[in-house]
């Protein structure tokens, strides 16, 4: 191959490499940016008066004087809406039965939409579920609700070859000439006065428990659950993994038995996580009965089994990377094997072992499948440290899945879901960052 061809080949390979890296970076951005903006939206948003009422009633936060003044102000605007409703009800009483029954469902729809905006309307019973006791807490949702109130969504089926297209008809047409006709322009121009949106920094999203299955409140229970599960898994897996790695590198002889152990360990690292989940259910809960049913303990044990092979591999490699001369020096001074391992080999291998450990911790925090059957519940209270042996816990990974797919109001609480994803990503990134820093620190200390 001549020089020219070689150069062209080198250059084209560089181009291919750079392109693939750029592609990956773009894909990563496409994934990360919405998560970031959506997740930040759970903490920074325009909160309505309803948000502040909820915060005061349920968590005792906020300034009562200001709140009362604002309630008086908003109620004065809302009062006019309620008057119009009353007037329309009186009008309906006087209608012919046919006409009345024609208006009745349309009117009910309007009432439903209004109570979604303002909470229970006057004369209605206090609802039992928390989610019906307050109006919209977020201004972006309020604007959506307003749009629903202003327009009726209809579907255009005229072209049978295409999907039906929605189009919007002003709802005011339905109430032309009645006492309710004035409601729509009034709502449109006064919604802000009725809800008083303010830029809100809702730190409680991270530190508060969730209310009414994540409709309101924060995600503290999930964060704490994730923390318990991951740390619990490390408590089991880290010592076991390091001991196993010491055995493999320093004590195991090269024979059939240890080669089987080694390949078993490598195979275990590739087993799908759902299998570990089923194993955890079958072994830890049904056979060993570490707890009555799902519990943090069972989940931690399952996660520990899952990350054990990774920890063993990382620790093994770290120990093998320690220069052999350290070992020779120590043994040459009359040290025993055990003493050499404890005082020379492990300290020198520590950066690698810790890095492996923390990366496994991140993996344990993010895994969903192993905890589905062993530890996770979708909605649960924050548990205390004493409950880890018996109680299941909500956890970020499982709740992200749950909110995305199974939650009854999945569409209305996307911000909570994004917030959880952001929290989980931040936790894992923080763990990895601390691994890098810790490693750098210890290596620096070792190198002098």
């Amino acid at each position: 191959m001549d020089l020219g061809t070689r150069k062209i080949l080198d250059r084209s390979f560089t181009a291919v490499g750079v392109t693939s890296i750029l592609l990956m970076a773009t894909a990563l951005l496409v994934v990360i940016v919405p998560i970031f903006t959506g997740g930040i939206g759970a903490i920074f948003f325009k909160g309505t008066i309803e948000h502040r009422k909820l915060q005061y009633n349920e968590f005792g936060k906020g300034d009562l004087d200001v709140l009362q003044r604002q309630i008086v102000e908003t109620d004065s605007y809302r009062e006019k809406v309620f008057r119009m409703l009353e007037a329309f009800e009186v009008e309906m009483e006087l209608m012919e039965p046919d006409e009345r029954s024609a208006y009745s469902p349309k009117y009910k729809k309007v009432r439903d939409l209004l109570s979604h905006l303002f909470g229970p309307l006057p004369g209605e019973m206090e609802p039992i579920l928390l989610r019906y006791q307050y109006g919209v807490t977020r201004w972006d949702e309020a604007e959506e609700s307003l749009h629903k109130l202003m327009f009726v969504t209809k579907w255009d089926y005229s072209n049978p070859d295409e999907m039906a297209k929605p189009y919007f008809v002003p709802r005011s047409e339905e109430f032309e000439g009645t006492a309710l006709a004035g409601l729509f322009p009034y709502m449109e121009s006064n919604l802000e006065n009725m809800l008083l949106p303010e830029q809100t920094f809702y730190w409680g999203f991270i530190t508060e428990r969730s209310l009414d299955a994540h409709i309101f409140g924060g995600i503290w229970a999930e964060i704490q659950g994730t923390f318990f599960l991951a740390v619990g898994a490390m408590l089991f897996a880290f010592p076991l993994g390091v001991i196993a790695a010491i055995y493999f590198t320093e004590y195991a002889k090269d024979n059939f038995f240890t080669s089987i152990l080694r390949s078993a360990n490598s195979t275990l690292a590739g087993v799908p996580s759902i299998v570990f989940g089923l194993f955890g259910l079958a072994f830890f809960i049904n056979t060993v009965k570490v707890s009555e049913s799902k519990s943090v303990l069972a989940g931690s044990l399952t996660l520990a089994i899952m990350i054990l092979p990774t920890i063993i591999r990382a620790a093994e490699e770290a120990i093998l990377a320690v220069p052999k001369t350290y070992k020779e020096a120590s043994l040459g001074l009359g040290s025993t094997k055990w003493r050499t391992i404890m005082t020379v080999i492990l300290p020198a291998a520590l950066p690698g072992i810790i890095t492996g450990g923390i990366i496994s911790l991140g993996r344990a925090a993010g895994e969903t499948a192993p905890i589905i059957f062993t530890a996770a519940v979708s909605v649960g209270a924050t548990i205390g440290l004493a409950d880890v042996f018996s109680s299941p816990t909500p956890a970020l990974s499982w709740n992200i899945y749950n909110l995305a797919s199974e939650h009854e109001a999945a569409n209305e609480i996307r911000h909570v879901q994004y917030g959880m994803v952001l929290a989980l990503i931040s936790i894992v990134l923080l763990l990895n960052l601390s691994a890098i820093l810790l490693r750098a620190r210890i290596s620096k200390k070792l190198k002098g």
Partner: protein
Amino acid sequence: MQMTAEEKDTNKVAAPGGASREIFLPPERERVKDGGRPHVSAKNFSIFYGDFEAVKKVNADILSKYVTAIIGPSGCGKSTFLRAINRMNDLIPSCYTTGTLMFDGEDVYGRYTDEVQLRKKIGMVLQKPNPFPKSIFDNIAYGPRLHGVKDKKMLEEVVEKSLRKAALWDEVKDRLDRNALGLSGGQQQRLCVARTLAVEPEILLLDEPTSALDPKATAKIEDLIEELRGSYTILIVTHNMQQASRVSDYTMFYYEGDLVEYAPTKQLFTNPRDQVTEDYITGRFS
């Protein structure tokens, strides 16, 4: 070196176990006090790596308190022999030995020999300086701590004494708490010697201790060996024949696993008995 017949007789040491070659003590002025008894004795001692016989049926006595150099071309088994004395070859799974190797009347490869106790008495310094990634103080104190010295004062004494013996004290006394890896190569090597001396061994095994060092550092290590001569039995493997002739009292020449010649250094370098030895020391091969 010419010796008179009379001198030969008086200086002759009976090689124990019927060793095939005679060993002579150096003339009076070079003798060391209380030295000259067989400290390490090999009898039909062979070392194998799997099927390969790296050292073949060696019979030799290494005399106490003298400096013995081991020379020979690469792969001749000189390092293997050295590392067999403190059983460092145990780290290689396929390595085993036949024959006997006695250290102070104790069988080094005996069934009930505690190699950890043995290594306390046989210190070793390797080709590449290998200080632990710890402070200078902790490096020296590693051995004493291992053997139960906990008192801070005593440790400080041992550290100072060992560093002085290794001629390193003046250079590092102000920075004992610094990491040993920050020292220069020559300093690191002397630190390794000091670390070994801190355990108070009887024998020092030096495995090409200067091959990774510059000439200046090499000279310092050689001065150090001269200093320690008479206090410790020293065995030094070296590639450098000038070094062997400078520092040693006796020289062993290995070739392809055989101990070809073992004689007082001057005699070996001036009047070798064996043709191969002569070819090697005159540089016909290396």
